[in-house]
């Protein structure tokens, strides 16, 4: 949409959707200004039915603001939002078929768990019997029926979290919005709830839009992820696409670990580009959008996608002699830092054998080794 001015923007993925023009939620060129600051900056997203869609990005990148615009608490400065193919415009929150699980849970302190969960049904004017039945069902869904009579402050964080979930799900909304719902929980509980949430989403068949700044959480749970930075959606894709084919330096850096080698593109041929470092070495990797011969570019290669060998042929692509700087044994793998001239590179070697001899776990600092990786395992990114 605004790709002309900012080539790194994700393109709307209308084309690759089986049901083009039928989306759970659409954001078209949405902007939200707070004074001079663009909290959300020309964001376009198409979220499919029954999708687990995550907004992932560092704090302050505009995730909450995006969610609040979908919920109806904020109006976009420009652009449009549609829910279930209906334009929202000035539709107030209480007339939108979405429910929110707030970051702070926002459970009503003066109501019991049961009253909290029944609230939405009462507002819809659903009769007493059905309200009672559906409230009970919702509490069973989150495995809390025995605590129906408690007040929120008599419950643990994890339990409150589930009440918030039940209170939203009981309304069977078209879309459920979750703003860092696990942020306040400790690590172990968070991992459990991740699995539980994902299972729950399958069970109820509702579109989830999930805000998080935890990349692992987003990768494990999502069907698709939008990576946000400074109000922009930089890339939208499946966890696999995001991790294996980041479309810009920010995404490659933000998701997982990677090495960046800056240089100049000397050749682009087919799907591959050759990059020359200032120190003279050349590397070949997959070409990505906007990479042109003669321009500056960055080679991005992940630490687990490289090998260190005792001997190798110096004529092979992406193969150079290096010096081992340090090694760290971390159980599942050994993390080696090497020097290629002045460039430091992280290489993770999987510990696939099980011995107690430290010498079996690779090189020692100061030793020479050969670094090698396949061109298809590296990416040449513009800029």
């Amino acid at each position: 949409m605004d790709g002309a001015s900012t080539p790194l923007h994700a393109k709307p993925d209308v084309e690759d959707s089986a049901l083009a023009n039928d989306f759970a939620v659409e954001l078209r060129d949405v902007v939200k200004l707070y004074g001079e600051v663009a909290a959300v900056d020309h964001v376009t997203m198409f979220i499919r039915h029954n999708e687990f869609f995550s907004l992932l990005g560092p704090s302050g990148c505009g995730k909450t603001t995006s969610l609040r615009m979908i919920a109806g608490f904020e109006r976009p400065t420009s652009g449009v939002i549609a829910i279930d193919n209906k334009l929202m415009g000035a539709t107030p929150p209480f007339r939108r078929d979405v429910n929110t699980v707030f970051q702070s849970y926002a459970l009503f302190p003066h109501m019991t768990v049961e009253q909290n969960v029944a609230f939405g049904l009462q507002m819809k004017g659903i009769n007493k019997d059905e309200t009672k039945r559906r409230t009970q069902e919702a509490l069973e869904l989150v495995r809390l029926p025995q605590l129906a009579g408690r007040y929120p402050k008599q419950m643990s964080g994890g339990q409150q979290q589930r009440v918030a979930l039940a209170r939203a799900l009981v309304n069977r909304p078209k879309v459920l919005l979750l703003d860092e719902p696990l942020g306040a929980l400790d690590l172990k509980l968070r991992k459990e709830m991740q699995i539980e949430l994902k299972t729950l989403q399958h069970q109820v068949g509702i579109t989830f839009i999930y805000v998080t700044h935890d990349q692992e959480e987003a990768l494990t749970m999502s069907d698709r992820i939008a990576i946000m930075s400074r109000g922009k959606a930089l890339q939208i894709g499946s966890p696999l696409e995001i991790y294996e084919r980041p479309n810009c330096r920010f995404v490659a850096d933000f998701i997982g670990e990677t090495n960046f080698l800056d240089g100049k593109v000397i050749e682009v041929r087919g799907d591959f580009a050759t990059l020359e470092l200032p120190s003279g070495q050349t590397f070949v990797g997959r070409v990505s959008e906007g990479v042109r011969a003669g321009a500056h570019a960055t080679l991005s290669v992940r630490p687990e996608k490289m090998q260190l060998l005792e001997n190798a042929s110096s004529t092979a692509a992406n193969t150079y002699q290096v010096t081992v700087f340090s090694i760290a044994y971390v159980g599942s793998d050994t993390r080696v830092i090497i020097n290629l001239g002045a460039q430091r590179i992280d290489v993770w070697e999987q510990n696939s054998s099980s011995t107690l001899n430290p010498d079996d776990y690779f090189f020692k600092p100061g030793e020479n080794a050969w670094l090698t990786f396949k061109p298809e395992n590296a990416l040449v990114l513009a800029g």
Partner: protein
Amino acid sequence: MMNAIRERKRLQIFGLMFPGAFWLVVFFALPLLVIFVISFMARDELGSPVPPFSLDNYQQAFDSLYLNLFLFSLWISLLTTVVTLLISFPVALYIARSPKRWRNILIFLVMIPFWTNFLVRTYALQFLMRANGPINTLLQGLGVIQEPISMLSTPVAVLIGLVYGELPFMILPLYASLEKFDWAMFEAAQDLGADMRRAFLRVMLPMTMPGVLAGSILVFVPSVGSYITVELMGGGKINMIGRVIASQFGVASNWPFGSAISLLLMVVVTIAALVYFRVGRGERMAL
């Protein structure tokens, strides 16, 4: 060892409590006791309390004349509380919603009248509402009315005077509650399908009920026994129980009867306050 520590703790607690306790005994309990004793006495020709002790004063207080005055006072005070609440809630809400740096200034503005003598303020209000006062002059000048409206010496004038005087006592506790109110709760209610009205009634109001209760008591209790406002705004034509008490201790020179009425007033107000708290709290639980 343990005993020594416990002894010191006890001394500490005593030390902390003493000033407050002293204050309560000297300025509250003792005068109350005096009034209580006097209320059972008779009076001599000069009005001073003398034995014998009897229930005569209380019997006299249950005369329909005084009962009606009691009811009228309670009614005016109830109206005062309701009107004050209706005015104060939006004001307190506005202040609580203002940017942080503005809030203290606005609260300051609410409190400024405290620094002027209450009597002077009531006289000023009376002056404004007089037949030839600024309000009538203005309305006549604009041609809205031909003859001046007589606003003073009516129950409404007393009501206006009371509301004016009590407003800060309602605004401050309401503000304290509203400032603590978490707006995510309001949004959660809307998110679950409640329009503004229902989000207010079902979530915001119950959650700010402590402020509503505190403010109502702070306004209601002084209103029932109010004297100066009734005297000035009522122009001697409106009678409330506070005026009766004042006259018994003053011109009528009947301290025993004044004491009996004072004590009855206290009992009535306490009961009213308890009922109000009970109802208010019950409502909060039911919501």
